């Protein structure tokens, strides 16, 4: 579906942050903001909710740790108990190191792959971005012109006052 967008480009993170706040105050819908680095405070300015990826990490870690504890117990005490140095078959302390490592491994891989999945990042994906300079030194805010009351010229003036170096309109069907 085609939609009209306003691309507002900045040179400095602080100009971007105040413009994002302005856009939020005016209740314009921000499609996304593109930055060369993780701008501190931008998530709050955009009103992004804390990521739920922490839960993925917790669940994967729990599966890794508890699963490995169970597996080691099953191997050493149930499937084929072997007497090693007269130690008890179900010796829990000896199972801790490997269970710990598996907890870390699954938690780390789980959260990274979940990140790639929810952000739709995969090898060979074509980057969809409004400008090639974003990964260098430009900050771009994309606003969706989603109703007739949106006054593009007024918005342009407002952003230029806020330090925007470029304000452009475009019609696109790109899914960001």
């Amino acid at each position, binding site marked *: 579906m085609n939609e009209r967008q306003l691309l507002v480009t900045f040179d400095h993170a602080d100009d971007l942050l105040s413009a994002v706040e302005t856009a939020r105050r005016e209740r314009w819908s921000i499609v996304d903001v593109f930055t060369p680095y993780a*701008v501190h405070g931008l*998530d709050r300015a955009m009103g992004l909710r804390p990521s739920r990826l922490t839960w993925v990490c917790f669940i994967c870690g729990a599966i890794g740790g508890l699963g490995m504890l169970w597996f080691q117990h099953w191997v050493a005490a149930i499937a084929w108990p072997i007497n090693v140095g007269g130690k008890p078959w179900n010796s829990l302390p000896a199972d801790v190191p490997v269970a710990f490592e598996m907890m870390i491994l699954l938690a780390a891989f789980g959260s990274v792959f979940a990140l790639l999945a929810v952000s739709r990042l995969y090898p060979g994906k074509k980057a969809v971005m409004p400008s090639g300079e974003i990964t260098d030194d430009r900050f771009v805010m994309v606003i969706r012109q989603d109703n007739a009351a949106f006054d593009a010229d007024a918005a342009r003036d407002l952003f230029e006052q806020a330090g925007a170096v470029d304000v452009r309109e475009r019609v696109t069907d790109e899914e960001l």
Partner: protein
Amino acid sequence: MTANADTLRPPLVTGDKSLGDVTRDVCAPLERRPTGSWWAALAVSSTMLLVGFIAVWYQIATGIGTWGLNKTVGWAFDITNFVFWVGIGHAGTLISAVLFLFRQRWRTAVNRSAEAMTLFAVTCAGIFPLIHMGRPWLFYWMLPYPNTRGSLWVNFKSPLIWDFFAISTYFLVSLVFWYLGLLPDLASIRDRSKGLRRKIFSLVCLGWNGSARTWHRYETVYMLLAGLATPLVFSVHTIVSMDFATSVIPGWHTTIFPPYFVAGAIFSGLAMVLTLMIIARKVMSLENYVTVNHVDKMCKLMLSMGCLVGLAYATEFFMAFFSGNVYEQFVFKNRAKGPFSWAYWTMVTCNVVIPQVLWLKRVRTNLAFVFVIAIFVNIGMWFERFVIIVTSLHRDFLPSSWAGYAPTIIEILTFLGTFGLFFTCFLIFCRFVPVIAIAEVKGVLPAEKREQDDVVERSQEVAA
């Protein structure tokens, strides 16, 4: 308050750089043709690698009887080198994960290369136990997989299996941590290049587009990984130390081993980071990013770790004396005065005595001095592992079986070969990947930092 304190600190990046300058400066060495010195360094390191490869080939074909081991000294050069290389890796994780959690923003200048160093060092480390197995082609027997032998499972009560899991996990987690940090920078290179280079970098940067929503999740996961890697790095060397501590050998069977090993690992790793970075900043003209200020901070860390290691040496001796255990006491007397006392005193001099000059700021800010001290620490930490392993074994409970140990040429060439592998990997890394985390450094530029703080304060005022 914080804004004031920050302006009092020396800036992390000097030379009044803009965002675009950072991209240009860090990418410049990757985009010009390799220099003569780079080719020369690669020729030397790949020759060492080739020599090591031949040595490994020979000892696998012939058997590990080619080593200088005997019935008394059953572990020596090989395990020393394994612990040495694993330890080197630890500083990379300390800088990338622990300092991240402590909000040490200066880490951004060195974390990328330190993480790469971790990966290469752990790779080098892995070679040694692999050969030590004797039949390395059966290494997958370490994995608990259903098999046609019964299924005969691995013995999870064995510290050597813990080690296998710890080192594998450490390598894999370090790899994803490094790669995740690399994504935005790979995208930077993609957007600067054309043709085949652009195609390759488009493939590996996974379509990164700098979206704030992605950044937001990315920051969350980066924090999670730092939180996971921190206990991981402590666990890895703890488990390596348990290879020794769970035995009943006097000199090994002590509870101080885990913290002692972790401190030593970080100490040796910092020395290696300093060695590499002092050269790299010069060769790649990155003096404005890895500043004397960074070296100064790493020297302080190295000094504190050196003192911890010194404390551990003293504690070991005190515990031997205080335990009243004659075997324990003998081992420590033998370390300081026996046939390997030269190794012991080399270790003490390099690790405890020489680093004390780092108390002086003049020394910490003199890069030539720091480089020499870092080399001494590298040597001292190798000897620490040698002392722990060989002096505890060579005079065992039965004087009739006392023996000496000297490495054979095969063992020495294998060790040389791992240095070849390490430096070859590092040189290739310097050519193809930004050695400085571009996106992270952009966040700590002096100008960007000050402005951000103002905005955050302003938005907090608005919110209030």
